[in-house]
């Protein structure tokens, strides 16, 4: 019997038990609620070898899985919401506000750490940058768009 990639993925736990414990600890310390808004829509060509994996479905599984680890983290799924040029994507929203923190594509492998880091930082009441960095940003008189290309490994 052969197993579909999608079924194989769905049966894999999101985190190892020790990772789950660590995340539960971090999420328990969040000082404000964080919403994960998952945006689903038409996707680009799947990566070679991904076969029948439904990236949108997997994104929902990842984000709902994270939301289960802490009372302050919630997950909402929308179909083609405004402001999302690529799908699937997730917007990390402190207190439900769009502050311009987004992850386009599935946070696979090591990149799951980036999404977790974004949640932990979004849940802090105060920014985590150094004072001199905050001062430099305060002087910013124009909008700045940062795109960071990443891969799972």
């Amino acid at each position, binding site marked *: 019997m052969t197993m579909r990639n999608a079924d194989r993925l769905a049966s894999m736990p999101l985190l190892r038990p020790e990772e789950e414990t660590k995340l539960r600890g971090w999420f328990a310390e969040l000082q404000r609620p964080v919403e994960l808004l998952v945006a689903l829509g038409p996707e680009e060509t799947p990566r070679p070898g991904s076969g029948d994996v439904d990236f949108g479905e997997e994104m929902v599984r990842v984000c709902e899985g994270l939301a289960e680890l802490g009372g302050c983290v919630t997950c909402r799924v929308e179909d083609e919401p405004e402001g999302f040029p690529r799908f699937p994507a997730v917007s990390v929203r402190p207190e439900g506000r769009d502050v311009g923190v987004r992850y386009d594509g599935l946070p696979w492998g090591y990149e799951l750490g980036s999404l977790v880091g974004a949640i932990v*930082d979004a849940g802090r009441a105060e920014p985590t940058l150094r004072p001199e960095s905050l001062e430099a*940003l305060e002087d910013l008189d124009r909008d700045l*768009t940062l*795109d960071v290309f990443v891969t799972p490994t």
Partner: protein
Amino acid sequence: MLLAFRCALASQRVSATAIEANEFPQLAQELGVYAVPRIVVDGEPRWDGSVPEAEFLRRILA
């Protein structure tokens, strides 16, 4: 990646998006992504690789 997210969380002027290069190959190709992390500022590829916070700020604000 986290530094970019932190900048967005600290300033209403800044937005930060992580883009999974394998999943969006067309865009990655347009921006010449051969190494990661590749940092693109206001649509312009700027550098590849991680740098310390002070240097990151210096580069994005340059």
